[in-house]
């Protein structure tokens, strides 16, 4: 069916050029909808700033016909004339979010969909255009749709049906001005008169409404109060404003670690430290005097305190007294709850670890879900050009730095695309692969060397034990470990300068990987040294105390070396760089984050042997925050290599979960299940393993009676049996496989939909071209007709609305 869209020549004396469709009778009904849409768009210039302003006098303003000619002369079909652009812009799918009427109708449809989840709305209240089949669509398909006012009434009605919190969220999320939102809110707040049943019922509902509002406001006030109390709120905003999101993610990670330590410390304080302090056991020996060295070595007068495992008693505290020793009366408070310390120790440590595990896995999956998208490639996205400007930055010099960063980033993007286009010779690829393998071998060699050094030094220490009065020599092993951890990353960085990676992000990830391998292997050797060798050599003494003290020493020295690193690495480097005329040093995010992860691993390793170690770690983190913040503001600048902040927090949490927490959990399980506790000290003396305490308790429960028989049954068949473990692993694998298949299916659906959209786009271009050609033919035939009619050349020309 042939139809015409006639774009007439606007009269010359009018200011604005408004194309309007032709008035031919047989075609008028066909494109009446276009006419109405265009009229709607061009109505009321001062009424709504959201509507498209009339197209400013630009290249096509010389008249619709001239612009039309321009479109015809344009070689490619994609160069649309302004008239076409106007029509395209007023197409239903484009007007979403552009005009107030469209916004209101879009939100009306959204609220309908929201309410439909709870209950089907009554049909009699809805207008005729909101037919059930159309409710799913966001498009204004019916051209003779309701006027804006009616839609608004419908929206108000729908909003009244939503629960309070959802209504508030819906109102906040509308892209309208505050005055309009206030009107909507006023209207939705007006009590419904349609269901008017005066009397106690109305009072009840009003009371309930008032209560709900009051609770909601109270909740808001509490939230506001909590936010104000949040530590370092202003400091973090200042750092984000000066250095951007990537440096901010380091400090946010520090805050997260602090939260994890609080979570770990609270059960320990409540169930172990508090109780043991209330019922102190008999001291094991004379308490030595306090010298300053205890703060470093953790020994001396700290030994027989709640800080270490050895202090905790192995019996039941607060037992009901079986006859007072001096013949007097039992105090009535003594007949309260007995507290089995070994059991409490085991369960509290286990539960604290379990809670930490759950929180870690949850935050990791949450972070992963926010930063990963199905279908997004690992390579650089050009669309990051929209996200690369960090609007938080407020300082002029920081924004200048951002401009430079973006320039570098864009140049690297271009280089990467060119590289992907070009092909490399086989020789070049082989050479790069060989270089890569060499550098990796060297790095692994350095790691091996460090490991061997630590191992031989620890064996040497075992051979020549430290005398009791030379406690400072105990610091030797932690010192060696910290020195190696400080020096090896610089070697790695030097070696990495040899290889050349395509993408800078890969470089950083490779550096992080290498440093992480070094740190984890070193810690593994130390764990073997403690559990494998020290236990054997310290048979007559309290080896758990020793291990706890070693971990304390490592934590403290780690902190001191971090301070040293900050002082020399950042302050010293800045002084040198300024002398040489180069800029301030960069804040090395990767190295700092790995230091944090290393410190947290130490805290997790030591929790079993030193319940107060998380408190030490918390103090360390607090001090580190202020030190790093001061150093950052004084000495450093933001890194030149732009990191994707969202990916970074995911990577940090994943690194915290997988090598770090998993290793600590394995260490803990091995210590609880396999190692014989010392017979002199601690809550598990005399048992074969720490886990025995639990087994003893279960056996006691079995003998207690049939009422609690399910617990021993659970213990025997689900915990000690290996079959449930296999079942759980199989279930987990099945879930993972199903998720992978779902993601694959989603990818296929996405590619099909993309194809469909591009087909629709081609259809649209085809239709527009067809319209143009038909218009042109009409013009030519119209021009021909005017030439025939205008016979007398001197006579007045007929101004026909052609």
């Amino acid at each position, binding site marked *: 069916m042939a139809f015409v869209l006639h774009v007439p020549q606007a009269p010359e004396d009018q200011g604005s050029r408004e194309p309007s469709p032709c008035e031919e009778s047989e075609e008028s009904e066909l494109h009446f909808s276009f006419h109405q849409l265009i009229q709607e768009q061009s109505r009321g210039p001062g009424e709504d700033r959201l509507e498209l302003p009339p197209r400013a006098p630009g290249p096509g303003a010389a008249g619709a016909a001239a612009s039309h000619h321009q479109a015809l002369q344009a070689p490619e079909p994609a160069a649309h004339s302004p008239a076409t652009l106007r029509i395209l812009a007023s197409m239903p*799918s*484009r007007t979403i979010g552009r005009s107030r009427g469209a916004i209101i109708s879009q939100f009306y449809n959204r609220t309908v969909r929201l309410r439909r989840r709870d209950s089907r709305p009554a049909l009699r209240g809805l207008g005729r255009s909101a037919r059930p089949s159309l409710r799913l669509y966001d498009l204004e398909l019916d051209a003779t749709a309701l006027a804006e006012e009616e839609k608004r009434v419908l929206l108000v009605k729908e909003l009244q049906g939503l629960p309070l919190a959802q209504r508030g969220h819906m109102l906040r999320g509308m892209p309208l001005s505050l005055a309009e939102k206030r009107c909507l*809110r006023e209207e939705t707040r007006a009590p419904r008169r349609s269901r008017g049943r005066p009397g106690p019922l109305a009072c009840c509902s009003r009371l309930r409404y008032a209560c709900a509002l009051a609770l909601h406001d109270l909740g808001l006030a509490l939230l506001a109060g909590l936010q104000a109390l949040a530590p370092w709120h202003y400091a973090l905003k200042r750092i984000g404003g000066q250095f951007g999101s990537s440096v901010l993610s380091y400090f946010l990670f520090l805050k997260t670690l602090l939260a994890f330590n609080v979570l770990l410390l609270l059960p320990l304080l409540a169930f172990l430290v508090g109780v043991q302090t209330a019922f102190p056991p008999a001291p094991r020996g004379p308490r030595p005097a306090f010298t300053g060295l205890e703060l470093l070595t953790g020994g001396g007068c700290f030994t027989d305190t709640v800080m270490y495992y050895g202090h905790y008693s192995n019996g039941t505290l607060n037992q009901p007294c079986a006859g007072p020793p001096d013949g007097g009366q039992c105090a009535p408070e003594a007949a309260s709850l007995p507290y089995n310390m070994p059991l409490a120790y085991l369960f509290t440590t286990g539960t604290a670890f379990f809670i930490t595990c759950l929180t870690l896995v949850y935050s990791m999956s949450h972070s992963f879900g926010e930063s990963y998208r199905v279908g997004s490639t690992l390579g650089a996205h050009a669309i990051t050009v929209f996200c690369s400007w960090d609007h938080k930055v407020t300082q002029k010099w920081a924004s200048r730095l951002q401009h430079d960063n973006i320039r570098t980033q864009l140049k690297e993007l271009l280089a990467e695309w060119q590289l992907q286009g070009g092909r490399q010779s086989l020789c070049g690829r082989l050479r790069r692969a060989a270089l890569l393998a060499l550098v990796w071998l060297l790095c692994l060699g350095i790691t091996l060397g460090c490991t061997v050094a630590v191992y031989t030094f620890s064996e040497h220490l075992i051979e020549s034990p430290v005398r009791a009065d030379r406690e400072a020599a105990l610091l030797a092993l932690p010192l060696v470990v910290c020195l190696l951890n400080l020096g090896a990353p610089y070697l790695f960085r030097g070696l990495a300068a040899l290889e050349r990676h395509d993408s800078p992000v890969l470089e950083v990830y490779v550096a992080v990987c290498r440093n992480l391998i070094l740190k984890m292997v070193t810690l593994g050797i130390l764990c073997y040294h403690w559990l494998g060798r020290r236990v054997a050599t310290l048979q007559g003494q309290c080896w758990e105390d020793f291990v706890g003290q070693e971990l304390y020493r490592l934590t403290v020295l780690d902190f001191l070396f971090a301070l040293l690193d900050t002082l020399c690495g950042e302050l010293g480097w800045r002084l040198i760089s300024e002398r040489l005329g180069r800029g301030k040093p960069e804040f090395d995010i990767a190295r700092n984050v790995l230091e944090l992860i290393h410190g947290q691993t130490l805290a997790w390793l030591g929790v079993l042997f030193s319940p107060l170690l998380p408190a030490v770690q918390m103090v360390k983190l607090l001090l580190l925050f202020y030190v790093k913040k001061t150093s950052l503001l004084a000495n450093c600048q933001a890194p030149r290599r732009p990191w994707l902040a969202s990916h970074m927090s995911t990577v940090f949490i994943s690194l915290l979960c997988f090598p770090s927490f998993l290793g600590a959990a394995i260490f803990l399980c091995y210590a609880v299940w396999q190692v014989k506790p010392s017979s002199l000290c601690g809550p598990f003396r005399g048992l074969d393993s720490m886990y025995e305490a639990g087994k003893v308790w279960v056996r006691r429960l079995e003998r207690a009676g049939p009422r609690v028989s399910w617990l021993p049954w659970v213990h025997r068949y689900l915990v000690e049996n290996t079959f449930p473990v296999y079942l759980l692993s199989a279930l987990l694998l099945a879930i993972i496989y199903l998720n992978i298949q779902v993601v694959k299916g989603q990818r296929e659906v996405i590619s099909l939909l993309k194809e469909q959209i591009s087909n629709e786009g081609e259809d649209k271009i085809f239709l527009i071209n067809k319209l143009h050609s038909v218009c042109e033919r009409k013009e030519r035939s119209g021009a021909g007709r005017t030439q025939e009619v205008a016979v007398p050349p001197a006579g007045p020309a007929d101004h026909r609305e052609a």
Partner: protein
Amino acid sequence: MGQCLRYQMHWEDLEEYQALTFLTRNEILSIHDTFLKLCPPGKSYKEATLTTDQVSALPALRANPFRDRICRVFSHNNVFSFEDVLGMASVFSEQACPSLKIEYAFRIYDFNENGFIDEEDLQRIVLRLLNSDDVSEDLLTDLTTHVLNESDLDNDNMLSFSEFEHAMNKAPDFMNSFQIHFWGC
């Protein structure tokens, strides 16, 4: 600069602003303070207006290369009332929902206001991001071609709102970077 009539904000107004925007109570009050300092004397804060120059000179927007577009999108008739400033702060706040941010980001990046982000808009965005006018043509055309190749789904050489929304949903950094803290300015 003189100061407005020092009317304390009524409790009901504060409640209302909290319910209608994503800002917290402290943020609203600090924006109120800043507004009072800047507005002309003799008017209450509800009637006073600020010019776009004054808003562009705020510390939060001073260094932003898109500040003229931001002012244009959020102002009415080129002036800012107090509620306009609140609306702007709400869209840029941390708690704002993604759909609202994407909506306004599209309007800000649409330089020629024709309802699409076309090649001309993209080139202007890149020039603003690099803050210089002497950028090679190759870089500009390459970049715009790549952006359109990745995000233009119906091949009309322009990004419509839906395509922009789809692309921003794929870029998880968008929420992080499209934030401005107007408090304490």
